[in-house]
């Protein structure tokens, strides 16, 4: 079998050619994963436009009016309480210049035998879309649930998640260019098995919506040990990289893990990429007021919440500017 022999003079060009081919192949491989906008542009411009103190005040004001009325805690558990909360959220979206839509759903109970004695599960998701500035079919969903367990005002669980979504809407609305449509959704009944997000995910599938990814903010207002760790549940490697970069800029540390709970699971189950951002639950730094009547505004760590908001806003802005 004849072997290929290079002369001494021919070796250098051959090595150069091989190196070039290898470099091209490497680039081609990397090109299969999306390259998000770099720190220097989007992230910095987003962060520069944010007044941290003003953001904390806005979030505090929102959580106050969403969880307390006439000095009484305002849970969002019964049908009537949730209906009032849904109206408030529709008004919040309208105040941000978005047309809020109501996605009412009626679904069977979690067990078929329950259907024989109980009525169907029903609720309302509130959602709005911020359109892309380009001719895009891609949708990015950012959501948070708005219901609570019985007798809990749910300042941390999950008015904090909603506060993040509302702030991100402001950030994204200010961008000159958006390569994706952004769907903001407030889910009903997460505390009751997440039928709201399941119904919404099925609606996305049924309507043939091209979902780039789903991002869920749930329970993100407690940092008891001050280590500024944020959990990122079920991230794909691409989304993990995106959030790690964004967290670096916000002074947070990401703890990626698998934890099958909350509304993003409804999307994962249907094959969509979905992540959840929350406080360091698995790390043992979860709010001691979780699911209690004491889940009140005075126990929300607003500085931590604002940092997490900045991280999500940066991540969303990078996605927005990346085709």
């Amino acid at each position: 079998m004849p072997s290929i022999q290079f002369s001494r003079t021919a070796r250098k060009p051959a090595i150069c050619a091989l190196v070039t081919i290898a470099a091209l192949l490497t680039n081609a491989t990397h090109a299969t994963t999306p390259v998000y906008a770099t720190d220097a542009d989007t992230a910095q411009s987003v962060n520069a436009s944010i007044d941290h103190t003003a953001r904390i005040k806005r979030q505090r004001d929102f959580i106050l009016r969403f969880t307390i009325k006439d000095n009484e805690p305002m849970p969002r558990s019964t049908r009537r309480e949730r209906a009032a909360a849904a109206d408030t959220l529709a008004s919040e979206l309208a105040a941000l210049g978005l047309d809020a839509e109501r996605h009412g759903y009626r679904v069977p109970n979690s067990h078929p035998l329950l259907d024989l004695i109980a009525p169907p599960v029903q609720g309302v998701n509130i959602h709005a879309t911020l359109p892309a500035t380009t001719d895009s079919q891609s949708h990015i969903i950012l959501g948070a649930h708005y219901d609570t367990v019985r007798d809990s005002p749910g300042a941390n669980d999950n008015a904090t998640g909603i506060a993040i979504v509302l702030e991100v809407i402001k950030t994204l609305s200010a961008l000159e260019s958006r390569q994706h449509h952004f769907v903001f959704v407030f889910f009903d009944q997460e505390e009751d098995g997440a039928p709201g997000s399941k119904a919404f995910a099925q609606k996305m599938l049924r309507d043939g919506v091209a979902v780039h990814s789903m991002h869920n903010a749930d329970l993100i207002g407690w940092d008891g040990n001050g280590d500024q760790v944020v959990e990122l549940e079920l991230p794909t490697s691409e989304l993990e990289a995106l959030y790690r970069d964004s967290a670096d800029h916000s002074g947070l540390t990401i703890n990626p893990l698998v934890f099958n709970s909350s509304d993003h699971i409804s999307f994962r189950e249907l094959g969509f990429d979905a992540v959840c951002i929350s406080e360091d639950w698995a790390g043992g730094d979860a709010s001691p007021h979780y699911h209690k009547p004491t889940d009140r505004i005075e126990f929300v760590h607003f500085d931590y919440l604002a940092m997490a908001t900045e991280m999500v806003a940066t991540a969303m802005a990078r996605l927005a500017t990346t085709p």
Partner: protein
Amino acid sequence: MTTRALPAKMILAVTELSLLAFAVRGIKYAVIGAYLPIAVAAILALLYYGLRRFMPHRLRLALRIWGVLLCVYAIIRLALFIVLTVDPSVSAHAADSFGGVAAIVSLLYLAGGVYLFKANRRDNVSTESQPDITDS
């Protein structure tokens, strides 16, 4: 004969009302893609009308059993009402579903069940002596 026809009509009315309640539930669930309730309602309706048509002599026994089942159904619902009143944190949907109005409906089921059971007893002479309820 007219005085005897009235309770027979009442028995049939109560039975059919209870079956109608299950049929309405079945349709509500069928619309959203869950078919167990409508399957149960269909089986009950087939049994009821089948017995009336082909085995009328068994109808009283069947209605008695249906009366017992309705009582059990009502008691389960009432038990859920009590449990969820004591501890509503179990599930917001369940607490909403088994509140005061549901308890009243459960009492109606219970009353219907007790009535069907008592009205179709073998030792109920007045009922026994009535003409076949399928003819009324």
